[in-house]
C-alpha cells in the first residue's frame, strides 16, 4: 500500500503534521523508533526517570559522539537525545510554551551580520495564526497580554494560568521594586479539563517526568491519538528508519526501516516528512546517500548538519529559611511559582556585539532527594573529592530547613561555523548504522549573556529576602534543546529547506522538527516546532490537492 504522507518520528513536529493531515483525509503513516508509553505507564520515580535516564538511550548502544575540545577528545554523550518514544521529548518536557519574539525571526536584519546568524524565511506575523492553532490544539494555560514583550496575538490562551504558590505575592512585589514585569509562565498543562484530559493534580514533580494523568499534554496525548482516531493515521512503533529512498527522477519514494525483529521493510508515500529531532533528522539525510545525492539526501550544498545549535542555558537559585523568613507560606507544598520575566530579552548597550539576552523562568525547586543529596556530595567536598559520612548527612538535613526557589535562563545559542554534526567514520549504533559526531563550540558571547542574566535573576531572589543564593550554570548549553542542521531560507545556495520546510533539492521531502530553525531564539523551541509543523501541513495540503507531488 502506498501512503499519501510518510512521517518519520512522532515528536512535536511529526504529531502536529499527522493530526492536521489526517483530519483532512490524507492517509498518513507515522514511524517511531521507540515504544509507546501511556500516561498510566509513568511513575514519579526519581531513580528510574532522572538518574537512569528513562527517556534517553543507553550511550553504550546508541551514542552521540561529542567533541567540545580542540584537539578533539570524542566522548559518548547524551547530547542531542531528547526521548526515544511515541511523542518524543514532549513526553517528559516541562511544557514551557512561550512564543518567540518577533525579532527572533529577523536576527540579521536587527543586529547585522555576526557569526552564522540569519533571518528566518518568514516573519512572526506569518507564523502567528499557527501559534494560536498550536496553543488551542494542545491546550496551553497562560494569560494573554501579560507578557509585555510578546508579539501581537490573534487569540487568547485556551486555558487560564495554573494555580500558584502563595509565595508568588512576595515574588511579584520584589519584581515591582526592581521595575520588572513578571507574567505567568505559559504551560502545556490543563488548568481545567481540556479535550478529555483532566485538570492538573498539582503533585510534587513535573518537568523531566512523564505525566501519569495526562494533565500535562504531550504530542502523543494532544495530537497523535486524535490523528489515529480519524482512521487516516497509522502508527508503527519500534521501527528504525535507516534510509529515505528515492525514485529515479530524484523525488523521495519512501523509506527502508528495520523492525523490532530485525527485518527490513520498505514503505512508499507521495510525500516524506522527516521529524526525528534536529540531530537525528540530519543523520537520516546523511545516511540516505545515492547516486543523485552522494553526500546525503538534499545535501548537495553540504549544509545538512551545519548551523547546529544547543540552547543557551544558565541557572541559579535562592534559599529561604522556613523559620527565619517572614513569609509563613513557605511551607506550602504547592509545586508551581509559575513566573517568567522577559524584560532582559535584549541586553543593555556595551555588553556585547550581539546584545541578545534571554528569558528567566522562576519556580520552586522540585523535591529531588537523590539529585539533591548528590549535588551536596559533589559540591561540598574538598577539591575534586566528594563529601560523605556524618558531614554529608548534616549538610543534607541542613538544606531541608529551606525552601528553594530556582530559575533557569533560556538564551540564544549563536549559530557558528565550529558547531555542526557529521557522520562518525567508525562508531555505529546497535543497528549497525553510523552515529553522529557533534562538534560543540559555543560563541564566547553566550558566557557574557549568561553571566549578566544570572545576576539579574539573583537580584530578584535577594530582593525577596533569600538567605543564600547560588550560581549554577553560566552560559552553558542544554543537551536536550537543540535546533538547526537543516536551515530554512529563501536562497537554495545557503539553506537546505525553503520557507515551507520543503527541501530545495527534493520537492516532496519535508523536515518538520527543530532542524529548520536558522537561529535558536531565547525560549525553548517546542511551541514553535508545533506551529511551524502546522504551517507546513497546510502547505502540504494545498499542494497535494493540486497534485503537485504526483
Amino acid at each position, binding site marked *: 500500500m502506498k501512503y499519501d504522507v510518510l512521517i518519520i518520528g512522532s515528536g512535536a513536529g511529526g504529531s502536529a503534521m499527522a493530526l492536521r493531515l489526517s483530519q483532512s483525509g490524507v492517509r498518513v503513516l507515522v514511524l517511531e523508533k521507540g515504544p509507546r508509553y*501511556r*500516561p*498510566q505507564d509513568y*511513575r*514519579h*520515580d*526519581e*531513580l*528510574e526517570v532522572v*538518574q*537512569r*535516564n528513562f527517556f534517553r538511550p*543507553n*550511550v*553504550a*548502544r546508541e551514542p552521540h559522539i561529542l567533541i567540545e575540545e580542540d584537539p578533539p577528545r570524542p566522548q559518548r554523550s547524551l547530547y542531542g537525545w531528547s526521548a526515544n518514544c511515541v511523542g518524543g521529548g514532549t513526553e517528559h518536557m516541562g511544557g514551557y510554551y512561550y512564543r518567540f519574539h518577533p525579532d527572533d525571526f529577523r536576527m540579521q536584519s536587527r543586529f547585522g551580520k555576526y557569526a552564522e546568524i540569519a533571518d528566518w524565511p518568514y516573519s512572526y506575523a506569518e507564523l502567528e495564526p499557527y501559534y494560536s492553532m498550536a496553543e488551542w490544539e494542545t491546550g496551553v494555560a497562560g494569560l494573554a497580554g501579560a507578557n509585555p514583550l510578546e508579539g501581537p496575538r490573534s487569540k487568547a490562551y485556551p486555558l487560564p494560568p495554573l494555580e500558584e504558590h502563595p509565595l508568588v505575592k512576595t515574588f511579584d512585589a520584589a519584581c515591582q521594586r526592581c521595575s520588572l514585569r513578571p507574567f505567568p509562565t505559559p504551560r502545556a498543562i490543563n488548568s481545567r479539563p481540556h479535550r*478529555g*484530559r*483532566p*485538570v492538573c*493534580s*498539582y*503533585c*510534587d514533580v513535573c518537568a523531566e517526568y512523564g*505525566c*501519569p*494523568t*495526562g*494533565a500535562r499534554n504531550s504530542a502523543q*496525548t494532544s495530537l497523535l491519538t486524535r490523528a489515529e482516531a480519524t482512521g487516516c493515521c497509522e502508527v508503527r512503533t519500534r521501527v528504525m528508519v535507516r534510509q529515505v529512498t528515492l525514485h529515479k527522477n530524484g523525488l523521495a519514494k519512501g523509506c527502508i526501516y528495520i523492525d523490532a525483529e530485525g527485518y527490513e521493510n520498505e514503505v512508499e508515500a507521495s510525500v516524506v516528512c522527516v521529524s526525528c529531532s534536529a540531530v537525528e533528522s540530519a543523520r537520516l539525510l546523511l545516511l540516505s546517500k545515492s547516486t543523485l545525492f552522494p553526500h546525503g539526501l538534499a545535501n548537495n550544498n553540504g549544509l545538512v548538519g551545519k548551523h547546529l545549535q544547543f540552547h543557551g542555558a544558565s541557572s541559579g537559585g535562592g534559599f529561604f529559611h522556613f523559620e527565619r523568613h517572614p513569609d509563613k507560606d513557605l511551607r506550602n*507544598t504547592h509545586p508551581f511559582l509559575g513566573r517568567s520575566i522577559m524584560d532582559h530579552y535584549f541586553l543593555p548597550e556595551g555588553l556585547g556585539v550581539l546584545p541578545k539576552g534571554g528569558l528567566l523562568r522562576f519556580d520552586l525547586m522540585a*523535591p529531588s*532527594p*537523590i539529585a539533591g*543529596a*548528590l549535588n551536596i*556530595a559533589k559540591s561540598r567536598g574538598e577539591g575534586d*573529592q*566528594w563529601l*560523605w*559520612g*556524618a558531614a*554529608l*548527612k*548534616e549538610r*543534607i*538535613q541542613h*538544606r*531541608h530547613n529551606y525552601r528553594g526557589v530556582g530559575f533557569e535562563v533560556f538564551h540564544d545559542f549563536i549559530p557558528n561555523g565550529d558547531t555542526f554534526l557529521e557522520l562518525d567514520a567508525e562508531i555505529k549504533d546497535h543497528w549497525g548504522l553510523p552515529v553522529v559526531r557533534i562538534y560543540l563550540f559555543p560563541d564566547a558571547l553566550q558566557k557574557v549573556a549568561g553571566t549578566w542574566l544570572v545576576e539579574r535573576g539573583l537580584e530578584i531572589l535577594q530582593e525577596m529576602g533569600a538567605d543564600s543564593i547560588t550560581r549554577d550554570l553560566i552560559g552553558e548549553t542544554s543537551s536536550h534543546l537543540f535546533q538547526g542542521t537543516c536551515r530554512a531560507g529563501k536562497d537554495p545556495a545557503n539553506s537546505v529547506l525553503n520557507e515551507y520546510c520543503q527541501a530545495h533539492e527534493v520537492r516532496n521531502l519535508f523536515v518538520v522538527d527543530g532542524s529548520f530553525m536558522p537561529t535558536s531564539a531565547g525560549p525553548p523551541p517546542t511551541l514553535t516546532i508545533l506551529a511551524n509543523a502546522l504551517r507546513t501541513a497546510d502547505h502540504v495540503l494545498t499542494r497535494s490537492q493540486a497534485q503537485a507531488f504526483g
Partner: protein
Amino acid sequence: MSSCFAQLKQEDVIHKSETLSDLRRSILHAAIDRLMPPGIGPGALDAGVEGYIKELFENRFSVKARKRFEEGLDKLQSLARTHHGKNLSNCSSAEQDQVLSQAQQDSDLELRRFLKILITLTIEGFFSDPVHGGNRDQVGWQFIDYKPRRPQGNSR
C-alpha cells in the same frame, strides 16, 4: 561519573546472576556504613542500602561493571590491611573512615572513581523509591521530611 552503572536499562540486564563473595560483602557492608553512618537519623544499613547495591550487582551490572566493582572493594580491603593490619570489617569506625579518606586521595584514578560510584549508589539506595529495595520503610525520605505527593486522577 557513575554513568556506566546508572544508565543501565532493561535491555542490558545480565541474565546470568552472580553474587558477591561473603568477604566482599563484608567490605561493602563496612564501607557504606561509614559513607552514610547512623547518628543524626538512620544510616545506610538501616535504610537497606546493602540490599539495594547487592541487587544491582547481581542483576543489573554488566560483566565488566561487576569486575570493576569487585576490584574497588578489594582495593579498600588492601588499604585496610596495609595501614591497620586487618580486614576493613574488623577496623574501628575511625580506622574505616581513614581508609575511605585515603582511597579518595589515592593516586589510583580507578580507586577514586570507585569511591564516587560507591557514594552515588549509597545515596541512591538511601533516597530512592522503596520499590528498588533501598530506603526501607521510607526512612531516607523521613530523614529529610519528604512526603511524596503522587498525582491523582487519570485520563482513562
